[in-house]
């Protein structure tokens, strides 16, 4: 692997947060081998609690888990109406950060999901389809070492 200049995630996240005035931006990344490649929220800006630190994300569960598993973006305009009360606990970040509307995109590397980027509001503002699109445009094609779209590999 080639040594590359270290990408400043925090700075990049802050830029996104400030530009769109999101209440929270968070980046979950697949951890290195010695942590058994688990997925964890690694960078987070605008958080109210540190509960996220304890959480190890599971494939297929919660926002990050879903995006990670499907490789598809996920968006909810209004968490309250789109999630049943009984399901809330399965989205710990929504509960602990009191999120009301969010969008999340997968980040790829070598054709695999390696990270999940989450942006969210916790007031009456809404991550609308248009805003989500705008956000995706602003990210561009790559975020640090990760790319936004899954590349179709030639077999």
């Amino acid at each position: 692997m080639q040594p590359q200049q270290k990408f400043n995630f925090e700075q990049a996240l802050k830029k996104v947060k400030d530009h769109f005035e999101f209440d929270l931006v968070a980046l979950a990344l697949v951890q290195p081998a010695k942590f058994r490649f688990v997925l964890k929220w690694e960078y987070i800006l605008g958080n109210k609690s540190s509960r996220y630190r304890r959480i190890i994300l599971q494939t297929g569960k919660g926002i990050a888990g879903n995006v990670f598993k499907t490789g598809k973006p996920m968006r909810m305009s209004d968490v309250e109406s789109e999630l049943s009360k009984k399901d809330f606990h399965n989205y710990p970040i929504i509960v602990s950060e009191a999120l009301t509307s969010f969008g999340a995109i997968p980040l790829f590397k070598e054709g695999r999901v390696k990270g999940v980027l989450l942006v969210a509001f916790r007031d009456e503002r809404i991550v609308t389809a248009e805003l989500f699109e705008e956000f995706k445009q602003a990210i561009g094609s790559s975020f640090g070492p990760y790319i936004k779209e899954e590349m179709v590999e030639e077999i």
Partner: protein
Amino acid sequence: MIFEDFQLTNLLMKMYDNSAEAIFFFDQSKKVIAMNRSAEDILDTQVLKKMIQGDPKAICFACKGYTSESELKTCTACYFENYEKDFSSFQVYLETKGKGVIPYTASYQTIDPENGVRMFMLRDLTRQFETQKALQQNMMTKRVIQAQENERKRISRELHDSVAQEILSALVDLRVLKYMNVEEEVLKKVQHTEISLMRLLDDIRHLAVELRPATLDDLGLEAAFRTHFKWIEKNYGVVVNFQAGLKAKRYEDEVETVVYRVCQEAVFNALKYAETDEISVHVIEEEGKLKLTVEDSGVGFDELEGHSKGTGLGLYGMRERAELVGGTLIIQSEIGVGTSIRMQVPLD
């Protein structure tokens, strides 16, 4: 014991008047000679009228059949007609005033052979049936829960011992590839596969533990709790402060299961509804009892209104499980203060 005649007559009269059992006397031609108050109370006015008029078939308007060896309600070889068969104790169904068809224990016997007078006595069986039904239901629930636990145990073992093992050996094989002479590109692909397999292995292990933790069967309550709470912390970010004061390493299988499941449910409820980051759990053995306390300082709920956010089935299920091992369960909650669940299971 021999009593004076009049005393006995007196007692018999009192019994006839005040007994909860319905008593009828029929003469040879099956006409009613007398019936007590209880008997009048259970019969429909129409039937009663017919009886007083002396209709020998009056009883048939109320009778829905008796229980024979082959049928629950039958009229074959009717007790009323059949003098040969012994009808000193049998079960009969009667249509009663206001209460519908009710099962009775009946006895129909000749008390005066000379004049052919027969006595028909009825005892309400409803309460007895209800007790029996409750008992049966209790046994049933117990068996269903037992069966469920056994099945969970089986699947959990299967996942852990064979499926997970198989994946593990595949993983080992893959890792060996790293030390062989393979191209960089292939190696990268192999590593991806390795990561996927590792994740799959973790998932399967989680699934197995979620079904029924092997630690509960192999190492007992305390160990199982510790593993479970660690898992809760990792999954939901909620910290469980756990304290144990157990005198024995192992308890009866059933007791361990109940305590584990009730605690699991209680912690899960706190996690779902209490809106708190911390839950405290205590398990102690004291005065020959196993005591479990699950507390949180969360939002609480109105005990009278019940569980507005959930189905309420969880609380019911916990109580049900506690009762299976003769335990008691107390749920206390106050809005803004928190919730506590205390269970005591007697050990013997």
